[in-house]
């Protein structure tokens, strides 16, 4: 099948590639761009391991054709830490609060949690649970993930206050 050109911005970098129409965004990211942070858990839109941020919204990259993302601004787990390797507050909080065990769900969890905190910077436990309902974790029982997201909310609010003071 003839390939079509597609262009988008991923973690701030412009990308231009050729893809088959049936190439799913998750396969494009992982196999064509070697951005293997977003995971494939179910490939049927259920588990959330493939969650990325697309034009300001959390979406499942296994349920989007690459061509649909033409012109989009995308953020993946690779775009969370600073260029010098300093972890993002959410990554720090997941480590600190043991928000991961095997780590398979973590890239999707963190991207989803990041968008959740943009929309609601001070969520309650129940709001966090509702917000991450589309991200399945088979290890942690979610308890520590909720704690990590709450902790990150505090870290991020603190960082913002510091920035405002400076």
């Amino acid at each position, binding site marked *: *099948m003839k390939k*079509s050109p597609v262009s988008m911005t991923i973690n701030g970098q412009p990308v231009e590639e050729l893809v*088959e*129409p*049936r190439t*799913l965004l998750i396969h494009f990211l992982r196999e064509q761009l070697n951005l293997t942070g977003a995971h494939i858990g179910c*490939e*049927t*839109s259920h588990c*959330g391991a493939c*969650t990325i941020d697309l034009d300001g*919204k*959390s*979406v*499942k990259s296994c*349920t*989007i*054709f690459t*061509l*649909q993302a*033409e012109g989009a601004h995308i953020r993946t787990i690779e775009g969370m830490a600073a260029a010098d390797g300093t972890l993002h507050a959410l990554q720090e909080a997941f480590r600190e609060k043991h928000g991961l065990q095997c780590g398979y769900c973590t890239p999707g969890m963190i991207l*989803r949690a990041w968008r*959740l905190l943009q*929309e*609601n910077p001070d*969520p*309650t436990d*129940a*709001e*966090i*649970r*509702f*917000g991450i*309902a*589309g*991200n399945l974790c088979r290890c942690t029982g979610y308890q520590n993930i909720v704690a990590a997201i709450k902790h990150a909310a505090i870290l991020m609010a603190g960082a913002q206050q510091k920035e405002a003071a400076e």
Partner: protein
Amino acid sequence: MNQFEYELAPNVENAVASGRSNGAVFLAGGTNLIDLMKGNLVRPTRLVDINRLPGLDRIEFLPDGGVRIGALVRNSDLAHDPKFARDFPAVAEALLSGASPQLRNAATVAGNVMQRTRCPYFYDAASACNKREPGAGCEARGGHSRLQAILGWSAHCIATHPSDFSVPLVAFDAVVEIDGPQGRRDVALEDFYLLPGNTPERETILAPGELIVAIRLPAQAALFAGHARYLKIRDRTSYAFAVVSAAAGLRIEGDRIVEARLALGGVALKPWRARAAEACLMGRRAGREEFAEASMLALQEARPSGENEFKIELARRLVVRAFERTAIDNTARLSPLPASIVNLTEEIQR
């Protein structure tokens, strides 16, 4: 997944023209269609991407109090629109009770209405299914039928329609605006869906090339804003399709009901409007006894299609509970903030 031609439709006219060609299918949010394509259950030769059709992503509040929802409005944007949630709380509640944040962000309102059944045999290419292959048989009959229909089913298909959103839409007389090769037409959502009968492969009245451009709720629907609820019973407290659900609305003057609305989800291949139940509440008190009577009428014609007799009694009880909740004024209940609908989820779980 099969190979296909991909085409980004620039306007409705082109979309309709392309959608008409053999093997063409419209692609909206893709959250249902792409999964079906992954399983080789749907094999389009041409995908007509309608995501960038101009003007179809708007929510227009009409001067008379109704609302016109563009086909491409995302489920999350509609549910979180403050005015929409205030005027049509049961519809917002239904949207937020479905799927997950990621899926609601991608899913469009037209795609939601058009989503295919979740019958497990329909999703299993190795099973016989009349819906996928007319005349092949129906493996759900005599199989795992716990979640299948109790109303309107036929010997050829016992599946249910999975949309939550469509249930309050039918209760409040939503109209589907369609554009197609033969021009524009409006169809009540209730009449838009077809019951299985002898032709379970035919699911809606849409002809080839016909495109949903908008869904309208009439002004009358907003009169229920103070007393409208959507209640969903499911196997888990989140992220599951309905076992049974109910959209209920009441207009109460003094201590009397002047108008009632009721539609059931998870019971048939379309949202089931219970008009006899509505009629019996007219002029009555909003009390448990009255609601119990309505619930008997709502399920009067129900019969099990397999291991699902329990759904009949479950639906009756849900009707009573939905009306009881509806009778309590709910104007301040829904918070429009993203990820802030805790009261709602707790309410549903109680």
